[in-house]
Each structure stands twice: as C-alpha cells, then as structure tokens.
C-alpha cells in the first residue's frame, strides 16, 4: 500500500508544479484570448534567471523567487508593447504563430546567453531534506511545491474574487467596452494580464529549478504538457487548471508506475477524450458537445 501513497504524493507534486506553470497560460487565454506558445520559454527564462541570481550572483533562493519572476514580467511587458499589440484584434491563429516566433527567439537567446550545458540550482537549506509521510520518504522540497501551489491557488482565488485589481481583470475580460466606459484602461489591463501570466510562468520556472535540471530545451518539454493541462481543465478556468494539472500528475504518477508501456500515449488520449466529449474542458465555461 505504501506504493499508492507514494504515487499519490508524487502525482500531487508533479501536478502542482504543472499547475503553477500552466495557470498563467490559462489566465492569459481566459482574459486575452491568446494561446501563448511562448509560455514554456518564459518558464525557462524564470529558471535561468534564478540560476544566475543564485549560483552566479550568490543570492539566496528566496531572493531569486522574488526577483526572477519580476524580471520575466518586465520582459513580458516589452513583448506585449513591441509585438503582441499588433495582433490582439486578430484571430487566435495569429497569436499562436506570433508566440511561436517568440518561443524560437527566446529559446535561441537562452542558448546564446547561458550556453547549452546542464545547470542545477540547489534548494534552500531549509528544504533540502526529506520527511516521512504516508509510509514513504518525501522530499521536503516536494511538499514545499505542493504548499506553494496551493497557496498560489488560494492567492489567485483571493486576487480574482476579493481584490479590486482582480475584479477589474475579470470585468475587462467579460466585457471590454463596458469596462472602458467605467474608467478602466483596458489596454493597460491587457498588458498587465500578459505580464502576470509571464510572472506565473517564471514562478513555475524558479520553483522547478531546484528539482529539474536546466537546459535550453526545458521550455519545449513543458509547453505541450501545459496545453494538455489547460485543455483538460478548461480554457480560461483556473480551478480547471488545477484539476487538469492534478489529472496529468496522476497520469504521470500512476501511469509511470502501473502502465509504463503507454505512459507516453496516455496524456494525449486524455486530452483528446476531453476535447471530444467536453470541448471546453471539464471546468470550462458553457461546456457542450
């Protein structure tokens, strides 16, 4: 039985990291109707910035967790102002293509700046051990990821439901014209939301850095996973993103253990099934066939 407990914890660990990464993708889609192909690249940037701050500048992990995402968010503002502003009024296909171009540019830039070697970041001393839980030892850092993921979920819920800024974002997403007529500068909301999505991607990157080796392909590895999370949970729904992330976490956690022959196939089967029967995702708005 210890196997199931361990697999469960492991699934949660994978799932909540995926949630942290994918929820930004989902918010950007929900509010801006943009499928951000470069989301994985922004996640990678977050991880590399954390590496630079921790291993090269010698800062503590906590400082990197604070600073790296801000750096990526600033870059996102530039991307928004220089490139994306041209395509907000166009159809989704254009945003897919433009963000794909941005992905290529960021990927190659990362390789030019940081080289192609494998880098690792140490978890902070406080979190580097492991604890006994559910009959198996679990890395303290994994628990930290789970906790941060849940905190982020709570924070997002609080932001969107209990703060004025969050409500303004929702209002702007629901009805841009009406929001404008109520003194809300929706153009700024758009930039802000894109930067916020990038910030979340980068938080995911910093969180991943102590458990995942950094290499210039790490963004590509995560982007399709993030799509799967978002599609399964429901485009534009962040509780959906959590559900999707946990489902994918379970597929990896249990699929790897009990169905290793098809563990490459399973996520895509899950994604296709959801799209076939609930195209808007399990928690998506107006789900219908």
């Amino acid at each position: 039985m210890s196997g199931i407990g361990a697999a469960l914890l492991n699934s949660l660990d994978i799932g909540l990291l995926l949630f942290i990464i994918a929820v930004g993708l989902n918010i950007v889609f929900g509010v801006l109707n943009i499928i951000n192909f470069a989301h994985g690249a922004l996640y990678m940037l977050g991880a590399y910035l954390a590496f630079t701050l921790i291993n090269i500048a010698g800062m503590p992990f906590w400082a990197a967790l604070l600073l790296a995402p801000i750096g990526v968010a600033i870059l996102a503002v530039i991307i928004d102002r220089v490139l994306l502003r041209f395509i907000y009024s166009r159809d989704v296909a254009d945003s897919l293509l433009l963000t794909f171009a941005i992905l290529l540019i960021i990927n190659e830039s990362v390789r030019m700046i940081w080289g192609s070697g494998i880098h690792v970041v140490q978890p902070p001393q406080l979190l580097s051990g492991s604890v006994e839980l559910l009959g198996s030892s679990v890395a303290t850092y994994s628990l930290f990821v789970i906790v941060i993921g849940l905190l982020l979920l709570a924070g997002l819920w609080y932001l969107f439901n209990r703060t004025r800024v969050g409500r303004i974002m929702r209002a702007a997403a629901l009805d841009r014209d009406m929001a404008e007529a109520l003194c809300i500068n929706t153009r700024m909301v758009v930039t802000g939301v894109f930067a916020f999505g990038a910030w979340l991607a980068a938080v995911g990157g910093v969180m991943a850095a102590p458990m995942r080796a950094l290499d210039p392909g790490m963004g590509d590895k995560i982007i399709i996973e993030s799509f799967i999370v978002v599609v399964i949970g429901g485009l534009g729904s962040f509780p959906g993103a959590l559900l999707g992330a946990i489902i994918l976490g379970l597929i990896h956690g249990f699929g790897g253990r009990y169905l290793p022959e098809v563990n490459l196939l399973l996520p895509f089967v899950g994604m296709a099934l959801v799209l076939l029967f609930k195209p808007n995702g399990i928690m998506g708005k107006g789900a219908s066939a």
Partner: protein
Amino acid sequence: MKTKVLMAILAVVIAGLIAVPWIASYFYVFIFTEILILGLFAASFNLIFGYTGMLSFGHAAFFGIGSYATALVLIHLEWPFLACLLVSMGASALLALMIGFLSVRLNEVYFAMLTLAFGMMVFAIAYQWRSVTNGSDGLAGFTLGSFGLGLDLTLANPSVYYHVVLAIVAIASVVLYVICRSSFGMILRAIRQNPERVSFAGLNVRTYRLVAFVIAGTFAGLAGGLIAPFLRVASPELLHWSMSAEPILMAILGGTGYFLGPFIGSAAFVLLETWITTYTESWMLVLGIILAMMVIFFRKGLLGTAIDWWMEVKK
C-alpha cells in the same frame, strides 16, 4: 495579356526546375528535392488552412504515416515505388478519415488542440511500437527497387529521383490545383470566409471540412512517401508536432491566399535554412524574427506581398 505573362513565368520556372541537375551544383539537386516534397506537404496543408480555414496542428501525422508506409512496404514487400506511394496515400487517407471524423466538428483553438493530440498519439505509437516501427530509431536501410509501370529508372541516383519527385509533385499539384479551382474548392474558400452562409446555402459544412481534411491528409501522405526514400529513413520526428509546425510556417511565409504560396514558402524556408546555417548556428533566432515580422506586417506572405507590390508599381 496577364495570363500570358504568368504562363511564360511558369514555363520558365518549370524549365528551370527540370534543368536543375544540369545547371546547378550537385547539392542543389537535394535542396530542390526537399523543396518540392515539403512544398507539396505545405500545399496539402494549405488546402485546409488557407482555403478552408482550419488550423491543424497534427498534419505531420499524415506526412509521417506516409513515410512509414513506404518504408515498411519497401522493407517487407519490396514492391515497386509507385505501389509504395499508393499505399502511403491510402494509409494517410484512412488515418485522416478517422482523425477528421472526430475533429472537424470543433472550431479554431479546439480543432488545433484536438489535431495536436491525435498527431502526438500517432507519434507516441510510432515511438514505442518497436516491433513494427523500430521505435525511436525509425526505419532505415531500405532500398528502392523499380519504379513501376515498366519504367526503367535508377531511383538511387539523386538526379533521377529528383526528376521523379518533380514529375509526381507536378502531377499532384495540378490535381490539387484543379480541386482548389473546382466548384468544391470554391465552397471551401466560402467556408473559410463565412461558414454559416454556406450552411444557409444548403450545404453541410462539416462534411465539406471532412472531405477537405481527408484530401489534405492524402496528399501529405504522398509527400511523406516521397520523403522516406529521399532521407533514407522514416523516423518518429517526422510525426512530431514540431514537424506539423513546418507546413504552417511555410504556408504563412509564402502566402496562404495563393496556391503557389506554400511552394514559395517551402523554397524560402529551405534555402534560408541552408544559407543561414552556413553563417550562424542561431538559425532558429533568425527564423523566429522573420516569422514574427511576417505575421505582424506581411500577413499575405512573400507571394502576396510581391503581388501587391507589383500591382502598386504597375499603377
């Protein structure tokens, strides 16, 4: 007058293409073979994207299945090449029918995501079904026998193979072109511009989208059948989603609004890659910048922009 000029240009281009092995350096035989095959792949994609308005992110599934089909037939049955291509087209048509049947009812993002999922499922199967597909290594080491139809062609000679590809791509392009210009093709263009109006004209839009999807898949399969002997390998990367991105980039680069756009895009893509990689390893960076510029400023692609420019000059 205008048609005459166009026909003359086309004739020169075709004559030039036929003459490639004699007028260009040997390497360009390979480059042009690749351009033609990828051009056909991109043109097949553009039937559903540029004409019908469906952004598929799984088109490589058909390209890949075509390459595996040809490779498998060559390895196990040693049939003539033409027969291999027919098997490739059949296999991809069948796969397109299955995927299309489930996918065409979804729109936009959902269609893109579902085709991505199906494409990656096919990739995962090819990657892991070692007994049939040889897993991650792919199928290699097959040799081309005869061409078929009693023609005595040394297919192993790259120049000969180039001419065979040129002939087949030319025939396939004419067929695709006729389909695009047919009443059916007109309906497809109408569906992209205004699907609802088409259904109010009494047509089942879903059926038309499916037929277009299957035709596109079949021609992608033909392109895949041509690429396997050219690359000497059928490997899983031909099925990967990043391979699905290539025809999208080519179609956009060349111009989705024109039949020849994807071919121009394929030529630009392959030549750019060849030339740029000579000077820098950061080819992806250059490609990213070019793509961003195309999407933002030249949405009509190279061909569209050139035609607009020409019209401007003539005025």
